[in-house]
C-alpha cells in the first residue's frame, strides 16, 4: 500500500498531547547529558587557547607540561596525523587546533590530559607559546576592504570580484526581472542600511565528550551533539581512522539550536586518549563556549524596495554582507536566498557575501542567515507601509507568495502557508487591541527552507507486543515523542507501547545531523514507512496462519483482518497476538526504512510584537507577542508551540540585548551569561501561538519542519514595534537601552 504523498485522513494519536517520554528522566536528573558519564581511569582534557585575535604561532614549548606529575598527554597541531583533503574538514581541524596562526581570541593551540582538572590547568599554565601578534579585523565591511588584515590567502572562490579583499570567500547572486525597471514604476522607494551583531545560540549545556581510542584505531565516543554520524565521520577523517571503527553514542542534549552540528573538542579528546592510553573527558566552561564554539554571523545589509501607493512591491534589491568568523560558512548566501522569499516579485536581485574575520567560526543557528535578512527586508516594508499610510499586514498579503509563485531564490512554490498566517494574524484580537502610551506594534514575516536528507529508522516488534523504535538523530525538540506517536498511529496501538531510542552509529545507517528542522519530517517519514514495512510482514504472518493470500488481509486498528467476505471468516489477529507467535511463523518481526528524504515543505510565519519604550532610559519591554506559523501537521502540538515560543524568545533576545562585544585588542569582553544577555523569564510575556496546518504535499501526514522559522520574524517584528513606539526607525541590533536612548535624543 504505497502512500508516498500526503493523503487527507483522520488521526487518533497524531495531534494529541501525550506526556513526553523523556520528561521523567529530565525532571528527576536521571537523564545523562554530555558530562554525566565517567569511565575507569578517566583523565580530564583541557585546552590552551590563544589570548590574541590574530597571531602567528612562532613556537610552542610543551616540555615542562609533559613532565609534570599527573600529566599523561600533551598535544599540539603537530600531533594530528593527517591533513584532510576536503577543504571543509581541513577547516574544522584547523578550528579545533590552530596550525600556523591563531585566528581568534580563544582559538585552541594546545591540549593536555591529566589526572585532575587542577593538574591539567597547572600544566596548561606552563606551556610556552611564542606569538607574533598580527593586525586583526572583526567587522564585515572593514574585512572586505582591500587593505584589511587577511586571514587566509587564496581562498577566494569564483565570482568574487577583484576589488574586495581575500577575506571575501564567496559572492552569490539570485533573482529575476530587472529591478531598475521596477523602481521606476514605484511611488516610493526606500533604501536603508542595517547592522546586526553576532549572537550565540545560548544552549544551556556546554560542549562535552568522553573519548576512548586505542592504538589499534578502535574507539568509542560519548558526546553531546546534534549529529553523532557527523561527529564520527568528521573525527575519522581528521584522525585518519576507519569510520566503522569509531562508535559514537550521543548523550541527552541540553540545547543546540545549530551550534552542535560540528565538532570542537572531539578530535582532540580522541587524540589525547590515544596518546595517553586512557579515556579522556573534556567539557567546555561557559567562557570557552562563548569564545570558541560557533556563534552566528554579524551582518551589514543594504535593502532597497519600491512600492506603489496601493502597496504593490515593484522591485526589490538586497546586498547581504555577513562575516562568518575565521572560516568559510554560507550565512550570507542563505541571507540572500531567504530575505525576499515571502514575496511574489517581478523584479528582484540579491547578492550574498561570505567573509572571514578574526572571530570564532560561525556555526548554524536556527535558520542560519535568515533572521538578519528578514530584519532588514521587513523593516523596509514596514517603513514603506507606514509612509504610504497602509496596513502592514494588508501590504504583505498583497505581495504574498502563493502556490505557483516563482520564489526570489529560484524554485516555484507548491502549496504554502504564508497567506494563511497573515490572514490569521489580521483576524486575531491581538492585531486590533488598543495600545497605550509609548507603545508600538510591529509585524513581520519569515521563511525557512526546511530539509530532509539521509535518514534510517528500524522498528522492532517485541514478543510481548511492545515496539522498540531506533532513530539516529539526537532528540533536541521532542522527536522521541513524535516518532512514538507516528509509529503508534500507523500500527494502531497506544503511543505508550512504542519506545523510541536514539541509536549509536553502529546500529543504523548514515543519518544527517538534527538540523534544517528535518527530524519530524524526515525521520517521521521513515518511521511511518518502517511501520508500514512491519505491518506488511505482520499481514503476511496472519495470512500464513489463516492459510489465505496476503493480498486478502488488511491492517485495521492495530490488527490484521480478512479484507472482505471472500477472504474467509477469521477473527482479527492483533499486533500482540502476531508478535507472540512470531517465532513459529518465521522469526522476529521488524520493519526498517532508509531514504534520502526529499519534499521537506518550506515554512512561513508571521509575528506580531507589542513593545513599550521608556522615553527616559531607552529600555524596551515586550508587552504582547503572538506567533502564527504553518506546521503542515502538528504531530504533538505542545512541542510545536514550544518551538514557536523558543524561536520567538531567541529572536527577541537577538533584537534587544544579545551581542558579542569585543575590545580594541579583538578579545571578547562578555564571555558569560552576565554580560551576554539572553532574556530571562521575567523579561517576557507569555508568547501566544497559533498553529496553521497547510499540509506538506511531500509527507504522508503533511508534516513540515517547525523548529527554525520561528526565529526568522522576531528581529524585524520587535524592531518595527520599537520604531513605531519610539517614533524613530531602528536599523541596528541589538536595540539595547543606550542605543535606543541615543536614537530618541537625536530626534
Amino acid at each position: 500500500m504505497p502512500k508516498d504523498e500526503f493523503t487527507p485522513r483522520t488521526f487518533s494519536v497524531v495531534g494529541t498531547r501525550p506526556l513526553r517520554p523523556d520528561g521523567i528522566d529530565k525532571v528527576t536528573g536521571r537523564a545523562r547529558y554530555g558530562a554525566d558519564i565517567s569511565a575507569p581511569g578517566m583523565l580530564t582534557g583541557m585546552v590552551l587557547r590563544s589570548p590574541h585575535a590574530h597571531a602567528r604561532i612562532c613556537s610552542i614549548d610543551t616540555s615542562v607540561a609533559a613532565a609534570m606529575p599527573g600529566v599523561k598527554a600533551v598535544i599540539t597541531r603537530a600531533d594530528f596525523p593527517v591533513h584532510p583533503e576536503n577543504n571543509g574538514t581541513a577547516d574544522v581541524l584547523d578550528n579545533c587546533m590552530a596550525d600556523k596562526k591563531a585566528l581568534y581570541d580563544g582559538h585552541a593551540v594546545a591540549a593536555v590530559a591529566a589526572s585532575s582538572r587542577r593538574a591539567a590547568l597547572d600544566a596548561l599554565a606552563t606551556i610556552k607559546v611564542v606569538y607574533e601578534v598580527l593586525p586583526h579585523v572583526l567587522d564585515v565591511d572593514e574585512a572586505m576592504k582591500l587593505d584589511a588584515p587577511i586571514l587566509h590567502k587564496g581562498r577566494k572562490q569564483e565570482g568574487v570580484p577583484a576589488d574586495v579583499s581575500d577575506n571575501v570567500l564567496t559572492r552569490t547572486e539570485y533573482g529575476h526581472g530587472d529591478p531598475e525597471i521596477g523602481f521606476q514604476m514605484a511611488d516610493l522607494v526606500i533604501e536603508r542600511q542595517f547592522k546586526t551583531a553576532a549572537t550565540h545560540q545560548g544552549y544551556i549545556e556546554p560542549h562535552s565528550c568522553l573519548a576512548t581510542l586505542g592504538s589499534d584505531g578502535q574507539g568509542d565516543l560519548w558526546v553531546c551533539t546534534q549529529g553523532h554520524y557527523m561527529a564520527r565521520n568528521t573525527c575519522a577523517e581528521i584522525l585518519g581512522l576507519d569510520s566503522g571503527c569509531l562508535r559514537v553514542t550521543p548523550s541527552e542534549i541540553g540545547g543546540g539550536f545549530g551550534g552542535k552540528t560540528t565538532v570542537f573538542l572531539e578530535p582532540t579528546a580522541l587524540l589525547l586518549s590515544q596518546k595517553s592510553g586512557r579515556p579522556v573527558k573534556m567539557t567546555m566552561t561557559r567562557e570557552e563556549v562563548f569564545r570558541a564554539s560557533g556563534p552566528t554571523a554579524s551582518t551589514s545589509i543594504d535593502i532597497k524596495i519600491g512600492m506603489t501607493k496601493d502597496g504593490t512591491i515593484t522591485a526589490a534589491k538586497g546586498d547581504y554582507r555577513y562575516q562568518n568568523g575565521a572560516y568559510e560558512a554560507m550565512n550570507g548566501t542563505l541571507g540572500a536566498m531567504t530575505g525576499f522569499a515571502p514575496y511574489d516579485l517581478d523584479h528582484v536581485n540579491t547578492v550574498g557575501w561570505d567573509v572571514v574575520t578574526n572571530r570564532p567560526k560561525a556555526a548554524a543557528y536556527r535558520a542560519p542567515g535568515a533572521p538578519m535578512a528578514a530584519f532588514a527586508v521587513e523593516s523596509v516594508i514596514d517603513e514603506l507601509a507606514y509612509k504610504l499610510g497602509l496596513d502592514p499586514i494588508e501590504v504583505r498579503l498583497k505581495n504574498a507568495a502563493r502556490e505557483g509563485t516563482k520564489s526570489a531564490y529560484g524554485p516555484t512554490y507548491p502549496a504554502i502557508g504564508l497567506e494563511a498566517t497573515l490572514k490569521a494574524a489580521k483576524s486575531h484580537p491581538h492585531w486590533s487591541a488598543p495600545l497605550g502610551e509609548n507603545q508600538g506594534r510591529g509585524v513581520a514575516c519569515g521563511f525557512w527552507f526546511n530539509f530532509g536528507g539521509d535518514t534510517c529508522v528500524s522498528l522492532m516488534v517485541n514478543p510481548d507486543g511492545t515496539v522498540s523504535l531506533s532513530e539516529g538523530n539526537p532528540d533536541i525538540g521532542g522527536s522521541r515523542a513524535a516518532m512514538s506517536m507516528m509509529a503508534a498511529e500507523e500500527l494502531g496501538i497506544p503511543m505508550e507501547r512504542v519506545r523510541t531510542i536514539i541509536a549509536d552509529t553502529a546500529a543504523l545507517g548514515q543519518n544527517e545531523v538534527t538540523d534544517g528542522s528535518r527530524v519530524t519530517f524526515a525521520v517521521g517519514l521513515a518511521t511511518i514507512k518502517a511501520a508500514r514495512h512491519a505491518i506488511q510482514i505482520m499481514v503476511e504472518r496472519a495470512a500464513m496462519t489463516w492459510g489465505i493470500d496476503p493480498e486478502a488481509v488488511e491492517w485495521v486498528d492495530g490488527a490484521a483482518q480478512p479484507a472482505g467476505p471472500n477472504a474467509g471468516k477469521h477473527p482479527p489477529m492483533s499486533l500482540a497476538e502476531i508478535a507472540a507467535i512470531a517465532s513459529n511463523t518465521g522469526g522476529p518481526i521488524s520493519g526498517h526504512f532508509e531514504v534520502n528524504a526529499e519534499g521537506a515543505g518550506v515554512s512561513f510565519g508571521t509575528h506580531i510584537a507589542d513593545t513599550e519604550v521608556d522615553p527616559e532610559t531607552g529600555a524596551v519591554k515586550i508587552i504582547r507577542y503572538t506567533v502564527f506559523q504553518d506546521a503542515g501537521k502538528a504531530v504533538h502540538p505542545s512541542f510545536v508551540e514550544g518551538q514557536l515560543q523558543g524561536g520567538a524568545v531567541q529572536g527577541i533576545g537577538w533584537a534587544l540585548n544579545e551581542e558579542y562585544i569585543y575590545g580594541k585588542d579583538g578579545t571578547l569582553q562578555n564571555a558569560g551569561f552576565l554580560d551576554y544577555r539572553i532574556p530571562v523569564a521575567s523579561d517576557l510575556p507569555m508568547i501566544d501561538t497559533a498553529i496553521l496546518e497547510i499540509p506538506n504535499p511531500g509527507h504522508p501526514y503533511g508534516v513540515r519542519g517547525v523548529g527554525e522559522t520561528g526565529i526568522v520574524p522576531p528581529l524585524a517584528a520587535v524592531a518595527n514595534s520599537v520604531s513605531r513606539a519610539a517614533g524613530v526607525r531602528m536599523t541596528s541590533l541589538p536595540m539595547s537601552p543606550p542605543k535606543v536612548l541615543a536614537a530618541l535624543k537625536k530626534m
Partner: protein
Amino acid sequence: MKARLHPNEGVIAMQFQSPLSVEDAVAFLADDQNARILSGGTDLLVRLRLGHIAPSKIVDIKKIEGMRSITREDGGFRIGAAVSGAEMNENHDLYLAWPGVVEAAGLIGSTQIQGRATIVGNLCNAGPAADSVPALVAASATARIAGPSGVRDVLVQDIPIAPGQTSLKIGELVTSIFLPAQPVNGSDAYLRFIPRTEMDIAVVGCGVSLKLDSAGTVVQARVALGAVAPTVLLVENAAEILIGTQLDDDALSALAEASSSVANPIDDKRGTIAFRKDVSGVLTCRAAKIAYSRAKGTVK
C-alpha cells in the same frame, strides 16, 4: 600568592575555619594575610571557582553568635553580618522603617542567592555596582568593625576605597551594619537600571532617603549613586536642592542635573558614559518620588 597543590591529586591545601566567636575569627584572620572571610559566599565561591583567588584559609562567620540576627537598638536596627537578603525581607519592622534598603538587598540575585547573600558581603566585595550599598549610604548606615585592636564604627561609604578594595585592615571583619532610627515622616527608596528585569548587574543604582515635616516639605535628604564611579558616590548637593521643597518639577530637574553631573562613569560593555549620566538623573528623580510618597504616607 599561589595556592599549594598536592602534586598528584591536585587538591588545593586550603584551611576552612568556622569560629564561634569574633575573637577567634579575628585570631584566624590576623595570623594569615591570605585568609578570606566567608559570609553568604555568593561572591567568594564564584571567584574561587573561576580561579580569580586562591585563599590559604577560609573563615566562615555564620556560626558566630549574633551574626545571623537582626536586633533593635536605639530605635534603629543592628543587622548581623551573616543575615541574608531573604531574612531582611521577612523582617516586617525593618521593611516598614527602611523599605529602600530592604528592597535594594532584595534585588541581589535570585531566590537561591537571596537565601545566602548578605549586605555585608555586598559591601566588602567592594564592587562598584553593589546594589545595597547606595541604599545603605543614603540611609546613613554604619558598619561595626572588629579587629586585633578592638571594635570601631565606620560610615558605610568609607568602607569601599576602590573596585575590589576596602578600608579594612588585616585581621578585621565587619560584624554588623547599623541602620539608625527612621525619623517620623521619613522613608527611603532604591532603584537600579538593568537592561533586563532580573539577574543582571546595575548600570546605574540610586538610593534616596528623605525626611519631611508635617506639611510635606523636605527637611533632610541624602542621595547616593552606584555603578557610576569606582566607589559609591554621595550626591553632596542633593540636600541643598531638595530641602525646603515639596519635590516640585524644578527641584526634580535640578536634582537630575546634580546627579548626572556627579556621576563619573566609564564607557564599557554595560553602557556608555552619556547613557549612565542620563540615567543617573532619571533614576534619582524616580527614586526620590518613591521615597517622598512613602515618607508622606507616614504623615499623620
